[in-house]
């Protein structure tokens, strides 16, 4: 019923437009627009005239296909490789490039330079001797252990095998080395509260 009414209305409208403009100016133009179907018809607005959507047969399938296409597009977008975490140490912060921070160094005299060079040479000599001594000591200790195992083997095969067995309780090995000064009795270290402001990046 309503469809027939609307077709009739549009027919009326087209006939009205064909008449010459004997009608008074703007009013007629307004009335001839599609927002106002005809003067005779009821004053209805487009929302009132709207009809419910017609069901098309292949709709759910089409909708499904549409959804799948969208999902594929989303997945492609999400496949972006994770952002690299910036390493704070490699980027000098702006406050170190400030000019006021450059130290004005006094020119060192020649003797000072020579003294430093000689000191460095002494130090390298000392370190070399220390290293050699350490290597020798380790070599000797290893040699002693090898001999001990040889003797043990001569003694008894059983003990030798027991000695060679690895010790599972040994590793991981942790040992507190010596400190420069011994620990003070009843010393209370000063307590400091601090807030950790390191930036944590997540990928």
């Amino acid at each position, binding site marked *: 019923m309503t469809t027939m009414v609307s077709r009739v209305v549009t027919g009326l409208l087209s006939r009205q437009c064909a008449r010459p403009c004997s009608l008074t100016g703007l009013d007629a133009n307004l009335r001839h627009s599609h927002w106002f179907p005809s003067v005779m018809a009821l004053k209805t607005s487009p929302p009132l005239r709207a009809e419910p959507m017609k069901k098309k047969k292949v709709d759910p399938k089409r909708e499904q296909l549409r959804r799948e296409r969208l999902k594929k597009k989303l997945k492609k977008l999400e496949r972006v490789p994770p952002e690299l975490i910036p390493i704070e140490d490699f980027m000098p912060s702006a406050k170190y490039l400030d000019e006021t921070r450059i*130290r004005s160094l006094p020119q060192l005299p020649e003797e000072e330079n020579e003294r430093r060079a000689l000191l460095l040479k002494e130090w390298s000599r000392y370190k070399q001797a220390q290293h050699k001594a350490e290597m020798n000591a380790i070599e000797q200790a290893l040699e002693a*252990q090898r001999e001990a195992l040889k003797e043990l083997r001569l*003694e008894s095969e059983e003990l030798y095998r027991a000695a060679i067995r690895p010790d599972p309780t040994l590793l991981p090995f942790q040992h507190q080395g010596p400190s420069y000064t011994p620990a003070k009795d009843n010393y209370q270290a000063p307590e400091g509260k601090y807030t950790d402001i390191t930036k944590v990046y997540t990928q």
Partner: protein
Amino acid sequence: VELEKSLLSDHELRLLEDADRISRQQSGDYDSDEEDTADQEIITAKDMEDAWEQKLQKYHTAPRLLESVDMDFSSVDRCLGDNLILLAKQQVGSEELWLLPQLQWEAGETLRQTAERALDTVPGADFKARFLGNTPCGVYKYKFPKAIRTESSVGAKVFFFKALLSSHNPSQTQKGAFMWVKKSELQNYLKPEYLKQVNRFVISI
């Protein structure tokens, strides 16, 4: 050298600023309105430095080498700068000698267990040690004097194991039975042959 190559730190900048401010204050035409320091700092950086210096002088570390403790051979804390070896007085044959703690091996146990038992039987404080591995680190073999030699046993082998001391509980009852010595002092107490072998695996820088 590192100090020269580095940039000025925050603290040093503050010191310079304070010095500047003081010089400006002391010069004739000083207008305090020009200073745009809303927070007039009462404590200058120099004062803070002085306070820190004083605090450092007040703090004394525990002394590194104590004469009295060094002389006491049976205390574990002597000569903290060097590695110490435990020596115990053992009865060998007819004599009493200073040796590394040792025990006769018994059938049915590994050498490491013998070593652990030897450590337990050292009279005096009971030591808990952490053995570094199952293998011996050195061996010393000697022949018995002719009087004692029998058909089967001509001599003896002593195997040494390395262990790190983990805890000790000194009891005051027997003091003369053991002592802690540095590598350089070892030669005063050990026999030369024995010493030669021991010296190989005892490492001290």
